[in-house]
Every structure is written in structure tokens, then in C-alpha cells.
């Protein structure tokens, strides 16, 4: 399995190279002169020219690309044009907040979401199913900025139990991860319910029941195991997209994550930071895909990885 993972990782190198070229070209296609934005709203033409030279943007584009590739290969991601801090540091400061927010939100959301989905699937049409789907539909429909502000108002302003935002101690993680996880839990509940229902209509489930396998075993083994495959795929995708930052949650809870960094960098045309972030997100997805494939094999040993 390890050999498989390594082969997959090696296979991802061309993907990353392609992403790097694409992003490099893409950020330069964005309208707007980064030098003008860096120099600020009341800079003179002279200031702007100075900044352009400082950023190396006065050089031909092929030279800029070669320089970028050379530096990236040496592990140098350059400096942010906005703060002039090293890009690795800018991203480093925000990676862990995003990582913890994602992990905590995903853990509870997956547990609760899949549980609700399975219960709804087993008790299809009964009150448990309806209750579960009411939760799921509400979770998907409530705008998260609204829910976040509501939670802040209740738990921080009125009750004073939890901080309004910021990345400080474990308490500061509760409201944002709850808000973030609600949508994910709702999506997974609906998704796992339909996967469960679909699988429970398969022949082998009926056969198992007919053979007299106890109902509990039919549910947990024959059905859930197979229903989990698409759920794992979905969870992986959600995990990957959350690792790219959750802009709304980060904004409402003043959470110093990667989503806000990306948005800020795009509006500031901070080329080095945009390039490094997109590359990081691509890498995260590659790794998550490999892990997801491994999980298929854990859940269903009939799937073998070569």
C-alpha cells in the first residue's frame, strides 16, 4: 500500500507542474496592475514605476517565469508583495488555524451526518427520517454568516461563555467549527441517506436478509459498508475544499485562515501568495485523493489497489 501511495505521489508531479504554469499565467491575465495596487491609492506615477521595478514586473514574462520556477524548486516561494513577508511564513501562520478548524468541523460533522443519514435510511418514511431530513435541509439552507452571527450574539454577547472570534484557545474553536460543520453534516446526512437507501435495494442485501442474517448485521455490514464508498468520496472532497479555507466562517469569526488570505491576495494582486496557495491546494487534493483511495480498500477489501 505504501508503494502504491508513493507511486501515486510521483504521478502527481506533472499535475503540480501543470498547475504551476496555469496559475502563473492566470494571475498575470487578471486585469489590474499589481504595482499600482501596491503603491496605493494616492501614489504618483513615479512611485508606481519604482514599485514595478522592485517587484520585477518590468522584466519580460519568460524571465519572470524562469525565475519563479527556479526559486520554487529551491523551496523559495518569494515574498508577499503586500506585507513583504516571506510567502512561506504568511501561509504558515494561517495553515494551522485552517487545519484545526477543518479537522474539528469534519470530525463531528461526519460522525453526526453519517449517523443521521443511516438512521434516516433505516427508518425510511418514519418520524426519525423526517426529523433527520428537517435537520439536513435546515443545515444546508441556513446561511452560515447568519448562523455565525446568531451564535456570537447568544454565546458571546448575551451569555459571555465563548469568545466572539479570533484564534486563541480551544474555546475559540467551538463556534466556528460548529457553524462550519453544520453545513457539512447536513450535506453528508442527505448524501449517506440516499447512498444507504440505494444499497439497501441491492440484490445481495435482499439475499442476506433471506438467508436469515440478523437485521443489525444486514444494516451495519452489508449495507453500510457499501454505502460508505460514495460517502467517503464526498467527505474527501469536502475536507479538501475546507482545507482551502472557509471564507465566510473566517470572516465572521475573525479566523486567520487561508481563505481570507487567498481573497485578500487576489484583490491585492499579490502574485507570489496566490501562486503558492493554489499550488498548496492542488497538493492537498492530491494527497486527499490518495488517502480516499486507501480508505476504499479499508472499507471494502474487495477493492484492491495496484
Amino acid at each position, binding site marked *: 500500500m505504501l508503494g502504491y501511495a508513493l507511486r501515486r505521489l510521483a504521478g502527481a508531479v506533472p499535475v503540480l507542474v501543470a498547475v504551476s504554469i496555469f496559475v502563473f499565467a492566470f494571475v498575470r491575465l487578471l486585469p489590474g496592475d499589481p504595482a499600482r495596487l501596491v*503603491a496605493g491609492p494616492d501614489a504618483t*506615477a513615479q512611485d508606481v514605476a519604482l514599485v514595478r521595478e522592485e517587484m520585477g514586473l518590468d522584466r519580460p514574462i519568460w524571465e519572470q517565469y524562469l525565475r519563479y520556477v527556479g526559486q520554487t524548486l529551491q523551496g523559495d516561494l518569494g515574498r508577499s508583495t503586500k506585507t513583504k*513577508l516571506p510567502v512561506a511564513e504568511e501561509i504558515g501562520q494561517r495553515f494551522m488555524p485552517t487545519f484545526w478548524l477543518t479537522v474539528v468541523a469534519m470530525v463531528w460533522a461526519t460522525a453526526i451526518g*453519517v449517523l443521521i443519514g443511516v438512521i434516516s435510511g433505516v427508518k425510511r418514511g418514519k418520524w426519525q427520517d423526517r426529523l433527520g431530513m428537517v435537520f439536513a435541509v435546515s443545515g444546508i439552507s441556513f446561511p452560515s454568516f447568519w448562523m455565525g452571527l446568531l451564535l456570537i450574539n447568544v454565546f458571546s454577547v448575551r451569555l459571555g461563555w465563548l469568545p466572539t472570534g479570533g484564534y486563541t484557545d480551544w474555546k475559540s474553536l467551538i463556534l466556528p467549527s460548529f457553524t462550519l460543520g453544520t453545513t457539512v453534516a447536513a450535506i453528508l446526512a442527505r448524501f449517506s441517506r440516499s447512498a444507504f437507501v440505494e444499497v439497501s435495494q441491492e440484490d445481495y442485501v435482499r439475499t442476506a436478509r433471506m438467508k436469515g442474517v440478523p437485521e443489525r448485521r444486514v444494516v451495519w455490514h*452489508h449495507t453500510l459498508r457499501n454505502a460508505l464508498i460514495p460517502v467517503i468520496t464526498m467527505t474527501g472532497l469536502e475536507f479538501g475544499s475546507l482545507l482551502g479555507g472557509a471564507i465566510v466562517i473566517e470572516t465572521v469569526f*475573525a479566523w486567520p485562515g487561508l481563505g481570507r488570505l487567498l481573497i485578500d491576495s487576489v484583490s491585492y494582486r499579490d502574485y507570489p501568495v496566490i501562486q503558492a496557495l493554489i499550488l498548496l491546494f492542488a497538493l492537498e487534493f492530491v494527497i486527499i485523493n490518495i488517502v480516499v483511495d486507501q480508505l476504499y480498500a479499508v472499507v471494502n477489501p474487495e477493492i484492491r489497489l495496484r
Partner: protein
Amino acid sequence: MTHSPSLPRRSLIAALGVTAALPWLGHVTPALAAANDLTVGVPDNLTGLDPADVNDTLSQSACRLIFQGLYGFDPDMKLVPVLAESYEADETAKVFTFKLRQGVTFHDGTPFNAEAVKVNFERVANPDNRLKRQSLLAMLDRVEVVDPQTARVHLKEPFGAFVNTIAHPAGMMLSPKAIAQFGKEINRNPVGTGPFTFVSWNADTLRTKKNEKYWRQGLPKVQSVTFRSVPENGARIAMLQAGEAQFIYPLPTEMAPVVQRSPNVEIVDKPSIIARYVSMNCMQKPFNDVRVRQALNHAVNKEAYAKIVYNGFAGPLDAPIPPKLGFYSKQDPYPYDVAKAKKLLAEAGYPNGFETEMWANNNTLSQRGMQFMQQQLAAVGVKVTVLPMESGVLNDRIWSVQKPEDAQLKMYYGGWSSSTGDADWGLRPLLWGQGFPPKLYNTAYYSNPEVDKALEAAIATADPAKREEFYKQAQALIWKDAPWIFLGVENVLSAQSKRLSGMYRIPDGGLLIEEAALS
């Protein structure tokens, strides 16, 4: 399929990606602040801490905690001496001699003296250092150290607004030792003479603590100042209500009622120096006719503008510069008069109005402002297409124009804040005949030789009486020519805890925190 009974649970856990134990969160700092620590909720992250290399008001406010200049501003944006005691200017406005305050040291123990002034001013002025605010001191020739307490500044050309210019944050004094030691990294290792010393700055939080050896007796009164970036308006208000912050800005005008209803917090509402206007391209039809420009000034109800766009938190713009700027000279307003506007348009040959377009940034306030203008101008037959644009796109369209004849710009909904507090930077970048984009910001493509002459003469002298006379002339001429629709001056709104006193937001939106006290 045969499985051991424990497998489903195991695979479920594996599928969830649950690790056995969650390690603790990184660098933890206590959320609870002691009673004498001031936290300020701000909208954005800082861009740096080198005052000559930042151009956003927030970073400049942060720099004001740590650094000071020879001159600075009081809460009303009047010029006050800080590290200088006095100055003298010669008749040509080319030589300025500063008497410096004695016994001031930088946070690292380096004495503040004329040598430090020389190092700092020459650092900013030197284009090789590539600092964003280099142009502010571009006219500097050299600094002469007369004696440790006297610095004489020689300019290449006369510049009457020089003392105001160095009161801008870019003119603040950094420790010469730290400049030598940190080089470009001074951006994150700020060492000044100010009331607070630097502790740390990461992603969204700046921490500073009291400078125990501060030269002003009895100050500062708080133990520490922390800036926390909270981008969401509602969350920032919640932070104030929950007591996590004692001061927040900005406060959107539509949220003022929320704060008014809260018992322990209050609104701070002050006029700003931010002028709101619509510039009209004076080189192109139909705006090349002064009657059209005057007509549009009559066509807009400025009181309604303040009420609708700013919920009443705005005043009139009754001169080309706001009242809080130096050398402001009040003019007779263009009264709201639709009949007169129509008459003027008819005289100019547009009895049925015309079609045009208006550009602006795509932020909420600009969009609201443009929609208001669209509705007002429709009443006199002028059909406006509004084009809100993302700032990069907008900048490209305005500043990529090399020849003024090629400009696509017709009307531009804009705002301007003169960060030096002086009429020069409030008028010259915007209305000087030599300042068409991309050189400066004359988006009206307005050129009146008499105005140009007055603006140039006003910086060729340092005599306030003479400068006043020139700016009076210039403002009267501009007002009559109406290159802009003069809209209003917005207020700066903030909210603070009732425990807090002595903290001010000056009219350019910056913060003065030196005298802040918590009860």
C-alpha cells in the same frame, strides 16, 4: 463476505479520519485581557510597520503607536510639534530649520537627534530604497546637521507644504541603529520613540506594550494596545459588546442604531476629510461645457445624498476641499434646482439631456452612491449607466491611459482624503492641469491655467498668509468651473466602550491612542 464484528466500527473511524488525540492548538495566548489593556477591533490586516512603506490608514495608525514625527496632528488634524519644538522657513520655501526636542531616546536606547533626522529623511527620499512613499520627500535635497538639536532641511525646489508633509506618517522617525541592523526587515522590527513598544505582529494581531521610558510625563495610561483584525461588521460590534474590544472602527452607518441601543458602548461621530465627488471629463462632450457641469450640480439634492447614502452621517462639500483641511475656503453652494438645471442644459444644447456612464469601485457605498446619482440625474434627462468595477479593473481603465484624448472615462464617482491635512495634497493631485492620469489623479481632466498658477504659487512659499490667498483664489475658480459634482464629506464613525477616554479618530480616519485611558 465475512468480517469480524469489530470491523465496521474500525473502518468507520478510519473513514472519519479521526486521529487518536487532537494535539493542542498552536501558540496560545490568553483570551482574557487585564483591565488596563486596550484592544482595538479593526477591519483589515496590517500591511507592514515601516511608516514610509505603507499607504493604508490602518497600518499608518499602527505605526503611530510606535513612531513619531517632528510634527504630527492633534485630534482635529491641526499641525502640532512632536519631536520638534519649532521650525523656521526661509523666504524661498526651500530651507526649513527644525529645533529638536531634547532628551528623547528610541526604544532601543539610541538618542534622538539631528543625525537621526538626516538618516530618516534621506532614507525615504532615496529612490534606491524603493519605499512606497518616496514621492512625499522626493523634493528633498539633503539634511544638514547644524548641531545635535538642530536639523536644517534643504529642498531641491520650493515646497510650502513641507511641514505638513512630514507630519504624514511617512515622515516619522525610526531608530537609525535599527535601520542599520534590520535593513528591509525593519518592516517587522519597528523601533521608534512613540508611547508603545512593539511586541509581536502575526497574521491578524498586532501587540504593543507601554513604553516605560516615554518622554511625555504620565503617559501612556494603558499597559498595552492590541489591534485585532475582524473583517465582519456585525462580529466587530459583538466584540465591543462582549467587552473583548474597547474601540472598534469602522462602524457602518446602517449599524449605528444597534450601537445606540447597547448600554455600555457609544458612537463616536466626527467629520472626516474625505471628499465625495463625481468628476466629469472636461475634455469631452458634453462635459466640456461649463453650463452642463453646473447644471448637474444643481440637479443633485445634496441633503438627500447625505441622508440616503450615509444615513445622515455626512456633511456638505461646500468647497473643493473639506472644511477640516488647512486653507479651506467656503463657497456658495449650488442649490438643488431641477428647473435651473434643465434651463442650463437647454442653453448648452441638450434640452432633452444626454446619455453617459459613470465608473466607480464596486464596494457597497460607491454602488449606493452611484444609484442615487443615477436616479437624481434621470430627473433632468441625463441617463447614466453605472459601472461598478473591481478595483484592479478600475485602476487599469483609469491609469493605463497615456494620452488624455484617449480616455474612456466620462464620469467617475470618487473620494479623496488628503493625508497631509493640507490644501496642497487635497487639490494638486486632483485638479492641477499637469496631473492627468497616469501621472496624478485628475480624473476630471480639468485644466485652468489660472488655477494651475495659484496651486503652483501656493507651494512656492512657506508664508501661511500668502498660501491662504492663493488657495482662496484657486478654490473660487474651481468652484465656478465645476469640474466635479460636489457631493459631501462623510463622517468617520467608530464605537467605543464607555470606560474608554482619550482615544481619537482624526479626520483622515487614523487613530490617536497616546492618551487613551480605561476607567
